Every structure is written in structure tokens, then in C-alpha cells.
């Protein structure tokens, strides 16, 4: 999908935190068109670090890259002033848990409207109307009433939809969703993902979903990168996930208990040291 005109190109990204000997991300390359890319890995594999490095949200880490291009902007040299105009406007991020990501002492509608007013000059009334329309688009019933609620008055699924509304309101070209539904119950998880998916497709947004959940990326991504110890060990079309060849990916798939499974002991991942050195660069 639109591979000829990528929204985001990253070549050989490495990130090192503080004095750590091992970099958190090593030689990661990716290119994203108007498609849905999944980044999967275990905790500590560096998948969230990639998202934050793209948004330049790691002021204290050493970030190096041969190339980090977002549309016409070179992310490795852009000034912070330039980044302020991009971040939250053309490139946005949906975080894991609405309980911690929304400001607890501000009405949710005001927070959505603020995201819009930060980037567009308009009256409060216009921002409010835009926000209400967006809340409606994420299938919140009675958005006028919800606009005036505080975060503790909304459920987890509703909170996450409010965050999605906030992040899509500025009509971004790239959305990074970092574990967008892992704090939600399974009954609302699919609903939230379907709403996000529908909006992303309608608007032709490039989406990077960061997750530890193989089922999620299988159902809601076109392409998947599998990360281990800061490196990409395998890249696959999501529909081919079951045909993964890398032993790490196969190990992750096998370790999942399945409904109607055999109840035999689950295969346990035997970690190999050569996974840390093999692979890395994926176009």
C-alpha cells in the first residue's frame, strides 16, 4: 500500500539510555506508507522506545539514526519549535491507559478541545463543536453530556475512545498507538479497536500499533515487525503470522494458551544468544 510514497522512513535507528552498555534499540529500519504496521515484542524489547524516538520524546537518551524522515521533515535535525508544530498535529500518540493519560481534574471534553486549539486558531465554540463531532465519531452516545464529564466518571473503554478522539481530531498523517487496549476488558477491546481501525482507514492515516499481543496485530495490522532485545528479528505480513520462520516468533506463538487447546504443558521459549546479533535491518 502506497509504498512508493512513504510517510515515515527510519534507517538504522539506535537508542541508548544513560550509561547502559546495551542500546535499547539497535539498527532498526522501517518504512511506513498509508498502512497499518504492528510492532510486537516482549517487555523490554524496545518497542515503545521506537515510538517515543519517532516522536522525539526521549530528551535524555542518545538517539542516532542514518535517516529519520517524516514527510518533508528530517526528524533527526528538526528544531524543538518545528517538532511542537508536528507533534500532536501531524503525528500523534495514543497511550495505554486512559486512567493515567487523561488529566484527572479537567473535563474530558476540554482536554479534547485543547488538543485542537493548540494547533488551530479558532474560537472555543468551534473547538467545542469539533470535539463533540469527534466524540460522536468514536461512537460515544450523547457526546454533549460526556464532554462535561471528568475522567473518573467515564469507563475505561470510553476513556480510551476519548483519547482516540483527541489524537485523531487534528487530522494527523501518522498515529502511533502504544498498547492501545491492554488496559481494557476483552468485551470492549474489540469495539475500541474497530473504531480506531475504521477511522484510520477512512482518513488514510499511517498507523503504528505497538503491542505485546499477537492476536491484536494479527487482526488489526497489515504488516508486523517482531522485535527482540532492541532489534527487528522478523518482518511479516500479518496474515502470514502463523507461517513465521524465526524461532523467537514461533516460540511466542506457541507459548500462547488457546481456547480449546490440549492443556498439555505449553512450549517454553528457549532464548538463543545469537538472536541478539542476527538480523536487525529490515527494509
Amino acid at each position: 500500500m502506497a509504498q512508493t510514497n512513504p510517510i515515515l522512513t527510519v534507517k538504522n535507528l539506535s537508542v541508548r539510555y544513560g550509561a547502559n552498555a546495551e542500546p535499547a534499540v539497535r539498527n532498526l529500519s522501517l518504512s511506513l506508507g498509508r498502512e497499518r504496521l504492528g510492532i510486537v515484542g516482549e517487555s523490554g524489547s524496545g518497542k515503545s522506545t521506537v515510538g517515543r524516538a519517532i516522536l522525539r520524546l526521549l530528551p535524555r537518551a542518545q538517539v542516532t539514526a542514518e535517516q529519520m524522515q517524516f514527510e518533508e521533515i528530517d526528524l533527526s535535525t528538526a528544531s524543538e519549535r518545528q517538532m511542537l508544530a508536528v507533534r500532536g498535529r501531524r503525528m500523534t500518540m495514543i497511550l495505554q491507559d486512559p486512567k493515567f493519560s487523561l488529566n484527572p481534574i479537567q473535563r474530558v471534553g476540554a482536554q479534547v478541545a485543547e488538543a485542537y486549539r493548540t494547533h488551530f486558531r479558532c474560537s472555543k465554540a468551534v473547538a467545542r463543536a469539533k470535539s463533540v463531532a469527534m466524540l460522536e465519531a468514536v461512537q460515544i452516545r450523547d457526546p454533549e453530556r460526556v464532554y462535561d464529564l471528568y475522567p473518573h466518571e467515564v469507563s475505561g473503554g470510553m476513556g480510551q475512545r476519548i483519547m482516540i478522539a483527541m489524537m485523531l481530531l487534528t487530522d494527523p498523517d501518522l498515529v502511533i498507538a502504544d498498547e492501545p487496549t491492554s488496559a481494557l476488558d476483552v468485551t470492549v477491546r474489540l469495539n475500541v479497536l474497530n473504531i480506531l481501525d475504521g477511522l484510520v482507514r477512512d482518513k488514510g492515516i499511517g498507523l503504528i500499533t505497538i503491542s505485546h499481543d499477537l492476536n491484536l496485530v494479527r487482526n488489526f495490522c497489515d504488516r508486523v515487525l517482531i522485535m527482540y532485545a532492541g532489534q527487528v528479528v522478523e518482518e511479516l505480513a500479518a496474515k502470514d503470522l502463523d507461517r513465521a520462520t524465526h524461532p523467537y516468533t514461533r516460540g511466542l506463538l506457541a507459548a500462547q494458551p488457546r481456547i480449546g487447546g490440549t492443556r498439555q504443558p505449553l512450549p517454553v521459549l528457549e532464548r538463543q544468544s545469537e538472536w541478539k546479533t542476527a538480523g536487525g535491518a529490515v527494509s
Partner: protein
Amino acid sequence: MTASVSIDKMGIRFGSVQVLPEVSLEVGAGECFGLVGESGSGKSTVLRCLSLLLDNWSGEARIGGTSVRALDVMTRCRTVQMVFQDPYGSLHPRHSVRSTLSQPLAIHKLDAVEDRMAQAMTDVGLPLDFLDRYPHQLSGGQRQRVAIARALILEPQVLLLDEPTSALDVSVQAEILNLLQRLRAEKGFTYLMVSHDLAVVDHMCDRFAVMQAGNIVDILPRDAIVGNDARHPYAHELIAASLRYERAL
């Protein structure tokens, strides 16, 4: 070493909120029984009441035929133990594994402390030199193993498992689930296990209860998941959502 659990009309309110109106369930000796439901449905509260971490509840709970309130605290701790969700929160950061495991032994004045600690470490598959480590020197899976060793060391009959793997990666979850299955086979524990993941429940449990807003709306055998045989609409929806999510349909 096995005991049945029977909960009869357990009810609790926090302030003005009736968290559990009236919960009743029976778990056979040596059975693994699951509690599922969405967050806030009272699953963990049942475990906390049963272990008397909360004691202002009404109704009755029996382990092996004896009311939990009738057990003195020492006997209770040797009968029922709990493993918590988050191994990053449930281990004291400034206590070594040795001190975490030796304190219950000291409190209960048990002999052969070193042997018991060695046995518990072997049971959960950790090397003995890990006794001198602190929680920050352990991975998440290793910490959960320590938490399980701490629960085992007093040789209880019933283990209450409160989302024991939901803070862990799938690969580590597989190790812990295998460990829990092996321990149940070896020691005949009765498990009461809270989970939000029906695939885990299907893998581990013989029967499970679906909770909604503090009520048990349905009690189902494990086999009911795969064909979604739930009768209650909410239980049906929960299983359907999990099946859709797994794309098992």
C-alpha cells in the same frame, strides 16, 4: 493435602457501594476453579474476603469444612495462601528472597528452615543461589516464582491466584502456567484463580464462574468456552468476545 472450598452468601459493601451482594460457590478438593468477569466485577474481592484480607463481610466461607473465621490466624495461613497479580508490587523491594521466604517459617516456628527454603526454590524452578538476590535483581517471571515459593513454603492446601500471569509476557506466562499445573499435579492443591483471559482459564481450570457487578451470573465447565454454551446473556457475550478476539470461530 487437599481441601474443598465452599462460599455461601458472601456479601460485602465498601461504604455505600454493595460490591458483592451475595456470592455462593463450591470448589471441589483438588479442583482448579476460575473466576472471570470485567474489571470491577468483584473477582479479586472474593479472594480477599476468603483469605480474610477483608473481614467485614457477611455470609460464610469454609475450607475443608471448617469456617475460615473459626481458624486461628496461624492455621489459616497454613491452609490458604495467595499469589498476587503484580510481582513488582507484591515483593518487598528491600528484602532478599531469603528473608522473604524465611519470615513465614520463623513466624510459624518451623524447623529445617534451610531445607524448606531449598525445597520451595526447587519446586518453583529457581536456582538456590537466587536466595541472596533482591527483587530488583530478578526478572518479572522470576519474581512471580518467588511469590509462588512464598505461598508454597507454609504447605497450604488452597492457593488463591489473583491474575497470576496478567503482568507477564506470553513466554513467561507459559512458564508460570506450566509451573502452576505441575504443582497442582504434584501436591494436589485446590486453586481458585481470577483471570480476565479466557484462554488461560480454558488452559488451567476445570470449571469457572462468570461475574458481573458482584454477582455470579453463570458457572460453566471448561468445555463450555469453545462452543460458547453459556446461557446467561453476559456470559455469552464475554465468551463470544474472547472467541472473536482469538479468531477461533
